């Protein structure tokens, strides 16, 4: 199972194994990782599962669709490496992925 590291903006981090096929958002919700709200449940409709992806991982992810970019416009403090964690589906290639949650989601 791919290992994912979730960091918060205070520097705390937690590494967990998440089943392939789940999203980075689902991995967080199922394992009580704080900092990801996912109010809409993964419908790309709320931008409260917003994360910053570590630079070296960014180009290994499939590019964000337009609808995801539109939603990131709404996120709290979006940056160049912003993604919605509900849109990152885990594969073996993403073993070791590191994401940082923003200061808050709204």
């Amino acid at each position: 199972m791919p290992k994912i590291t979730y960091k918060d903006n205070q520097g705390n981090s937690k590494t967990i194994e998440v089943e392939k096929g789940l999203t980075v958002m689902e991995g967080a919700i199922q394992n009580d990782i704080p900092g990801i709200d996912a109010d809409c449940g993964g419908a790309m409709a709320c931008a409260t599962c917003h994360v910053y992806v570590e630079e070296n991982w960014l180009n290994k992810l499939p590019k964000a669709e337009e609808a995801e970019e539109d939603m990131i416009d709404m996120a709290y403090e979006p940056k160049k490496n912003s993604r919605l964690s509900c849109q990152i589906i885990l594969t073996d290639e993403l073993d070791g992925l590191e994401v940082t949650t923003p200061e808050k989601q709204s």
Partner: protein
Amino acid sequence: MKKTDVIIIGAGPVGLFAVHQLGIKGLKAVVIDNLDKAGGQCIELYPDKPIYDIPAVPECTGEELTKRLQEQIKPFKTELYLNERVEEVRPEKEYWIVKTNNKKEFIAPNIIIAGGVGSFEPRKISLKECERFEGKSVFYAVKNKDNFKNKNISIFGGGDSALDWALELSKFSKITLIHRRDEFRGAQHTLSEIRKLEQEGKIFIKTPCQIDSLESENELKSIIIKYDGGKTEKIPTDVILGFFGLIMKLGPIAEWGLNMDKKTIEVNPENFETNKKGIFAVGDICSYPGKLKLILSGFHEVALASVECFKRARPNEKYRFEFTTSSKTIQGRLGKK
């Protein structure tokens, strides 16, 4: 104070269908919602996106679903109280009293909370200093355009609201439109209009950049924006308008003494009653083992909750299960003869 059989909090799809399920049982209801229109998340989050999992409706948008539900509950002539946020819930003997932010009061033996993920509120600018100016020179909606005449206005956002207001307010104010990336996602014709005005020097567009800080004495004087590359620019600003969509906040629901699991309300899956007798929770806001946040689950939940509501509202009558296809009583209530 208005008296009814059931107070429904939330006018999303499940709240609307609650009116139907209660109505066919002969119960009266009122619906209260914080937004200015019915539909909840269907209207606010995905009015144009297709939904494929409503039984017998292969495809419909959030807006269509809302319209159809409103059509379906028309016979019951239920009053919708919009722009009202429920603030307070308190018991009064066997009844519950609900009070809104505009001091409207309702009394009923039952409350159905169909509140989704809470009430929608505008998403605010992340810069902390903006709070101080909120309602004075920082706004998230335009209520009266006359207050925005002959000003230097900085508009943030890349969607329809940002573009529409940039266009409208440019008729009598100096507009700077600021967005975090080069692409805007508003309607194409609005965008071309804006590009035209930009060429004529009537609207200024700044991308890709975000707000960095404010300059103020007693009043807001200017804002500093920062481009992706790190360069900054000062823009004289009297008014900041932010259009970043809406965010859902649980709000006062958390203070009503209900058993909560994170942001959801725990219910008994037999009748969707909470730990308080006569208060029910249905749709996305309720939780029980195996809960799925689907519209169709909400429809099921409200059908069962309405039976329990009947028992509490009509303690001296026996509840009789009936089909809409064969019950003359139900058909009468639906206005069918």
